């Protein structure tokens, strides 16, 4: 049973990790704390729902469309709404993203209504039995996709030009621009990528939890904490942080109580932070 919970926790944790990685990416490149990050995940979920359940578009098309659409939303959000205030004081920027969070979540409410929706399982409700463990296809898919994305991201960041631009901008915006990198554009694409990652998480999450406009904020809080625990600014940290939260969520929820699940998770995380304020993988900017 324990390993069952842990496994499911890991797969949920991967989803938090995806959102957290996107969150960290935006922080690294644009120095923005994106309060609307959870809403990107929500948006991806809704897009997939609309395409597949409402319009009957086949799954293999709906999912990429949803992710692409979310990435597009991220891109245009940055260009239109974030870019103007990028230079000014951090609090103003945080406020814009808070405003965006309100805007997006309520926009979704207006468009799709307040009723939560059900999203059918991708691969059916089958489970696999290995060594006495029941693994749903969904969980396996999530973990596989997460590993794939992690590898792809690594390749992207180390081997591609775009990846290098992202890292340069993250290190030092001024010098990057002096070296001829179009910082604005890089940041916009970084936003798109981050939103896309959140979109993937949202899409993968759709069959597991109810599709509703309210999930943005809880997701944001969890991935924010994941990023912070991991050492704000570190990608592997965000990954580990997300998985940690997913696992703790499940274990605490089962062994202790579901009511206090969030509280206990937070308390443990606070303790971790107090013991190690820089996070698990401190990132020096």
């Amino acid at each position, binding site marked *: 049973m324990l390993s069952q919970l842990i496994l499911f926790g890991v797969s949920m944790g991967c989803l938090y990790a995806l959102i957290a990685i996107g969150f960290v990416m935006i922080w690294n490149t644009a120095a923005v704390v994106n309060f609307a990050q959870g809403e990107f995940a929500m948006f991806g979920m809704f897009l997939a729902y609309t395409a597949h359940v409402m319009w009957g578009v086949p799954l293999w098309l709906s999912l990429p469309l949803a992710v692409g659409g979310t990435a597009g939303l991220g891109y245009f959000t940055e260009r239109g709404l974030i870019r103007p205030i990028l230079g000014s004081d951090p609090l103003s920027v945080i406020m814009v993203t808070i405003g965006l*969070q309100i*805007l997006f979540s309520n926009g979704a409410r207006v468009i799709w209504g307040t009723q939560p929706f059900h999203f059918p399982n991708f691969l059916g409700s089958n489970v696999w039995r290995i060594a006495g463990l029941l693994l749903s296809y969904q969980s396996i898919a999530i973990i596989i996709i997460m590993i794939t994305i992690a590898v792809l991201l690594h390749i992207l960041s180390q081997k591609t030009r775009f990846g290098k631009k992202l890292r340069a901008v993250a290190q030092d915006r001024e010098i990057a621009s002096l070296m001829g990198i179009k910082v604005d554009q890089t940041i916009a694409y970084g936003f798109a990528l981050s939103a896309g990652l959140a979109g993937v998480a949202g899409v993968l999450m759709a069959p597991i939890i109810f599709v509703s406009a309210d999930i943005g904020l809880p997701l944001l809080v969890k991935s924010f904490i994941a990023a912070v625990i991991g050492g704000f600014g570190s990608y592997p940290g965000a990954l580990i942080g997300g998985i940690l939260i997913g696992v703790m969520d499940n274990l605490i929820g089962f062994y202790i109580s579901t009511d206090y699940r969030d509280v206990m998770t937070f308390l443990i995380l606070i303790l971790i932070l107090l013991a190690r304020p820089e996070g698990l993988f401190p990132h020096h900017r």
Partner: protein
Amino acid sequence: MYKRITLLLISAVLIALPWLLPPYPMQLMVFVGVFAILTLSLNLIVGYVGMISLGHAGFFLVGAYTSALLTVDFGVSFWLTLPVAAILTAIFGLCVGFPALKLSGHFLAVITIAFGLIMHVLSVNLEWLTNGISGISNIPRPSFFSYVLRTDAEYYYLVLAVLALVVMVFYQLIESGVGRALKAVREDETGAACMGINVNRVKVVSFVVSAAIAGIAGVLYAHYVRYLNPDSFTIDISIRVFIMMIIGGIGSISGSLIGAFAVYTLPEALRFLNEYYYLVFGALVVAMMLFLPGGLVSVSAAFQGKTIVHPRVLLWFSLKGGRKEDRHGRNT
């Protein structure tokens, strides 16, 4: 000179308000007053010391529930529960303030968010204490000797008095060496420390005072609505207060008042939008930050050429220009 006259005029208007307003807006003004106090408490931490708190609803909750429980379950007088609640909330502020020392920025944001959420969950689940989601009802109105403050107007004066007291205390502190120390910490912690300021002590004390004031706001809230349940103390409230502070203008006393007024009365003005209201609200927040990052008070800062604004004179200008929706913000 200008200041005195402005002050007198505004005070006169505020005192005369119950005669000028119909009942429903009057009720709103009571809430505006309560939230103005809450916003001021947040402004102390964010605007004057430069820390961040996204969980102030937690302090609001502690104050409200403490007073509610003491009056309902034990029949303690409001005038005693008020200071007790303030002190208890201050203790919570101490608990949050200490971790705040080791952490800053986003780490602190996480801790404060967690605090707010933990308080909310506790209020839902500690049913033997808080009655869970059913909440606490029949919270009594305070009474002055034997005269019960039953009407909205009477409660309004109570809130107004507390608000005035808080504003005066703030103003005195800000203008003194204490306020300078706060501002110094906000501007440059290291520099402040090198000038002899005990930065840690400043931060913790600020958190404690801020929490106490938020707790007082909570008490006033509880005894006005007379029914409490956990739904009134979610992270939405923390965010809403944050928005009030930002829209009014960070680091400005009058800004907190104006922000509370603007954000609280806006729903009423936009009533006709129904379910689109929140959408528009979010859009307004975004637009606000893009075009008027200094908040509403900065409209008048343009007249003065300053960024840090002097409270009373601004209230005058802001009343004229800032609150109405038809006046577009200027780029400062």
